[in-house]
């Protein structure tokens, strides 16, 4: 939004909407160095419970500290409005959520006084994807609400854990025990096309074979076909007798490769020496799977060097000389072929090569179909109280959630209905906000000014505390607005419909510029 005095047509008009700030340390650590980029960005949320109770005070003191830091670093009378929903549930009226929501309503500074190192704002800017707020505010749709802490949780103050592994193609739930031995890949008939990385389908040469006989004959060869680029595995000579458990059939071919057999022979040769000295080492040598991650290789290396050094001192001449069974020849054939390439099609692309990390061949004829990687489902926990916020279903092919504590279902959603444009300096203009209550109980909202600023700073809230009616599914199908239920107290609200309430704010800009 641009206040007048700015040249017209400068920025594309973006629909403004409301962002929220979380209390967690990630946002707060950047808040203390606020300043330039956001024209005196508002304070971090500092919600004290209005009629404070003992349970809320612990949170409150942290927030007050954050607020004090902000005051010291800034010198401008920025006055964002803050709201604190204190939803009064039927069960408890002692605990109050002290989540603070910051609404854009701050004034642009004159020449802003405090400069700050640019990289810190960049960090905060990009952490939430919201470029207009250095504190990294997030829309309500990405926030969670922890029931036991009564706090908002942003995506940075939750921790993830793995629930299950599933194949994205056949939607098969891989049992967690076998995931590691299968190298996190699907162990059924799922492959990636080596050329275009689409999924391959298993087809038979004679599609009518099963019509005429009860069992498919042995002559009915099965092969893999890519539906996107029409690559088929007959080009590389891979055919199958049965259409089931193809990965097992391919794995047998894999193990016959010369380099895999060479590794097995090396392992056998050195195993007898290491087994005699250290007991911890053979666990790395004995596992056939290739090394997994930094930690195992570093431990392996350190243990190898330690045993080798011990060998040097003790049994240096005990290791027999190892003659490799396969002679690796210096072949220039690859080089010559690469130098004689005419068109780019004769060699593989980086993406094709990196799909098959073991071989990484340069020629497209030697690319093999790769097994499909498994995907995971994650659950999210609150970092402080370790309760689960979001837990998806255990089955791979269902996308529901067993537990889904998202903020949209708990807190009122704030949207901007209308803004009186253009905003002229020194004149009051009206902004209308709508609060929508998603819960089945009534919610009471009280608004506060940021930093305890007064209405003289340019923002006037006409209805500082109001209530929102509960959500009722029946009303969703009614057309038109519904009058307030009888018995509700009439406060000075702008409009009240089924489960939402609109209030009006009067904003008087002090200086021309951008309003956030």
């Amino acid at each position: 939004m641009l206040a007048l005095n700015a040249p017209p047509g400068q920025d594309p008009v973006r629909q403004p909407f409301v962002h929220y700030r979380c209390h967690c340390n990630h946002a707060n650590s950047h808040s203390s160095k606020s300043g330039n980029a956001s024209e005196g960005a508002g304070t971090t949320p500092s919600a004290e419970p209005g009629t404070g109770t003992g349970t809320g005070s612990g949170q409150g003191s942290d927030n007050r500290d954050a607020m004090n830091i902000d005051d010291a670093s800034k010198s401008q009378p920025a006055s964002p409005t803050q709201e604190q929903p204190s939803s009064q549930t039927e069960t408890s009226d002692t605990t109050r959520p002290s989540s603070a929501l910051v609404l854009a309503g701050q004034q642009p500074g004159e020449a802003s006084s405090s400069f700050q190192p640019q990289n810190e704002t960049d960090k905060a800017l990009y952490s939430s994807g919201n470029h207009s707020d250095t504190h990294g505010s997030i829309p309500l749709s990405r926030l969670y609400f922890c029931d036991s802490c009564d706090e908002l949780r942003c995506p940075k103050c939750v921790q993830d854990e793995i629930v299950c592994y599933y194949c994205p193609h056949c939607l098969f739930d891989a049992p967690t025990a076998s995931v590691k031995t299968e190298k996190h890949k699907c162990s059924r008939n799922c492959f990636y096309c080596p050329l275009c990385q689409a999924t391959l389908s298993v087809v038979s040469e004679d599609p009518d074979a099963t019509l005429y006989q009860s069992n498919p004959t042995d002559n009915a060869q099965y092969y893999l076909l890519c539906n996107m680029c029409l690559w088929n595995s007959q080009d590389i000579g891979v055919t199958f007798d049965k259409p089931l458990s193809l990965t097992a059939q391919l794995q047998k071919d894999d193990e016959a490769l010369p380099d895999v057999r060479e590794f097995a022979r090396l392992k056998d040769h050195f195993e007898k020496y290491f087994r005699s000295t250290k007991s911890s080492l053979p666990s790395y040598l004995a596992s056939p799977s290739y090394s997994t991650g930094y930690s195992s290789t570093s431990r392996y290396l350190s243990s190898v060097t330690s045993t080798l050094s011990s060998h040097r001192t003790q049994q240096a001449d005990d290791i027999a000389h190892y003659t490799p069974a396969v002679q690796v020849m210096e072949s220039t054939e690859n080089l010559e072929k690469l130098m004689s390439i005419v068109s780019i099609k004769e060699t593989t692309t980086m993406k094709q090569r990196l799909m098959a990390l073991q071989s990484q061949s340069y020629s497209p004829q030697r690319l093999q179909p790769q097994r499909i990687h498994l995907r995971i489902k994650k659950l999210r926990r609150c970092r402080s109280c370790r309760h689960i916020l979001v837990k998806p279903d255990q089955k791979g092919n269902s996308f529901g959630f067993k537990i889904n504590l998202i903020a949209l279902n708990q807190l009122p959603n704030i949207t901007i209905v209308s803004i009186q444009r253009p905003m002229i300096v020194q004149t009051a203009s009206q902004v209308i906000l709508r609060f929508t209550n998603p819960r089945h109980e009534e919610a009471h909202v009280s608004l506060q000014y940021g930093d305890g600023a007064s209405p003289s700073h340019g923002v006037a809230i006409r209805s500082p505390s109001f209530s929102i009616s509960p959500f009722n599914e029946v009303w969703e199908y009614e057309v038109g607005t519904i009058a307030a239920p009888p018995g509700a107290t009439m406060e000075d609200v702008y409009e009240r419909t089924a489960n939402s309430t609109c209030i009006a704010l009067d904003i008087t800009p002090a200086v021309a510029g951008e309003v956030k």
Partner: protein
Amino acid sequence: MTRQKLTISSRALVCQDNDLRGDITVGTGTVLHPQCKVWALGGSIIFGSGNIVEENAEIINRGPETLFIGDNNVFEVGSKMEGAKIGSRNTLEVRSQVKSGTWVGDECVIGAVCSTNENEILSDRTVIYGAKNERRIFTGNRTV
């Protein structure tokens, strides 16, 4: 208002709400689904046998020469054919485009939302696939 000449062979199917303009000859067994467009603006269009032109497909001939469409082609939903020549047993998948002046051979597959370039000659059995319109010549069978 151009004078329209429409020749429909036996066993062909032309629907009432087809948008047809110009000289069009429809071969045997060819089916023009409802809501498709066949515009023979510059020159006439001659269909072979057994073609399938699905809904919202557009076949437009602006050039002065006749557009000969071969046999057993499939023009899937939303595809656009503005080329100059097309052979037999091709498939233009959903929302694909053959740009003007292009010659398409036999048994080609233009993938979904893929398009050719203008004034291009596609050899037989060309597959155009992927977001970047990559192509290759395929061997073996297609399970059609």
